[in-house]
């Protein structure tokens, strides 16, 4: 697979996202999976790592709905009257990752349930840094 030659870093992580794929690292030595692209295993320090394509299925483990937004999210139209949801997603393969949670009612967080099934939905695909987002499955 030609993609195997990509450097194990964030540039490659975002390049995969641009292709609609959530790719992380599997350690060939100890089997540890990481949803972040790393050149060295954080568990056993092995440099023998390979790309691992996650299925994009997971569940919502914790979340917040943000009303006081950073500048970058303000530019996308979010703010006091249009909050957005960010969460911690546990991927079905095990690792967790932080992501934007779309397709939920962020103005009414009581309607968002921890544990809900999610599926990958990458946004801002035209950017060199697409947004890792999930929507209800």
């Amino acid at each position, binding site marked *: 697979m030609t993609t195997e030659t990509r450097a194990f870093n964030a540039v490659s992580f975002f390049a995969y996202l641009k292709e609609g794929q959530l790719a992380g690292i599997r350690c060939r030595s100890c089997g540890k999976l990481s949803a972040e692209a790393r050149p060295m295993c954080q568990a056993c320090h092995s440099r023998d790592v390979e790309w691992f394509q996650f299925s994009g299925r997971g569940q919502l483990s914790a979340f917040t709905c*943000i009303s006081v937004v950073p500048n970058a999210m303000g530019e996308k139209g979010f703010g006091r009257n249009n909050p957005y949801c960010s*969460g911690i997603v546990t991927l079905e393969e095990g690792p967790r990752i932080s992501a934007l949670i779309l397709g939920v009612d962020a103005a009414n967080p009581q309607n968002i349930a921890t544990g809900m099934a999610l599926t990958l939905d990458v946004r801002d695909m035209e950017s060199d840094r697409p947004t890792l987002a999930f929507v209800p499955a």
Partner: protein
Amino acid sequence: MAATISTAKRRQLGRPVSIVGAGLSRFGAFRDMTTRDLFVEAFQDLIDHMDQGIDVEDIECGYIGNYSSDLFEGQGHTAPILADWLGMTPTPITRIENACASSGSALREGVMAIASGMYDVVLVGGVEKMTDLPTEGVTDVLASAADGLYEVPAGLTFPGIYGALAKAHMDRYETSLAHLAKVGIKNHTNGALNPKAQFNSTLLDMMERRKARAEQQGQPVPDWRDEMDFLNDPRANPWIAWPLRLYDCAPITDGASCVLLVSSEIANNFTDKPVHVVGTGQASGRPLHDAEELTSLSAAREAAAQAYAMAGVTPRDIQVAEVHDCFTNAEINATQDLGFFEPGEGPRAVDEGRTALTGDRPINTSGGLKAKGHPVGASGVAQVIETFHQLRGEAGPRQVPNTNLELGLTHNVGGTGGTCVVNILRRG
């Protein structure tokens, strides 16, 4: 106590280290002051309150915590500027950056510099000038303490990550919005007794002032009956990062703090009432999404285990503590991570008043970051200063009733658990 992730190796200082003086600037929003002005104010407060005086020439070295003068006011390489403004050149001063734990770490560096035998007299402190930027700008600067590749692009802000932590706590334990509100009410009650606090006022008084202002301006007067009523009104207490509201968040603050550390052998040259640093621990943690659990900070548990082991004490022995309440839920997490209460028992301890000034485990007698203010790089040493005053019995109206205080603890978190520093102090 909470399970520790390691059985911390018992490390020892090369020789004992004592705190012999403390200085704090006013905490608040000071439009006309820069980083250097704030730190000079804290330093002058230290000089003015040394029991037996200090010759500045005798200070051999300094470590100053500062998160981001670069981003807040466009000034990097802050340490030599502070050395100059203190009239201390060519004394070496080093800036220490560990986000909001910067000065907790700076204190550790100073302790180790003396324990190594290299220096006898060391200045440690912290400073942050935050209010030049609008709130959105401060939000961006604080968010840069999180992982810029894997957290910030998800839209997570600093309150956002703590909001997710709060939600996880609420899912697992009985923690509620009311528990968070009670932490804020308690800390403002303490802050009202602290003349240096940014909010030197109870929430009840703040509520009454809002009512009076509405009346003066001929506007409808809100019918809040008590603080809880006030805090439950979304017009007074809007969402910041659900489930966190405005009054769950520590304010944006300008301020500076410093203490003088000396080798314990010479402590009595400076004061009859030194306070000894008997335990210090520091640990690193991973981003929240990569943490082993979402209801506890592993770095806090590990730093606490290190500090307890060095001091040879247990959580039960700690009589007063300043913990890192950058958000109200963070105080509840801290009291569990430090082993003061079992996991899940933190909220009940708040309900029972155990963490109040008059409780059996007074937490954040200074008002905490919540009411005293949170100039991020200055907060770790400011916590140490409150504990220093409590142990010396000179905390005035907010002195805890226990007249036989011996042991106090400070818990200083950087980012959302990336760094935690725990220091344990003993009355000399």
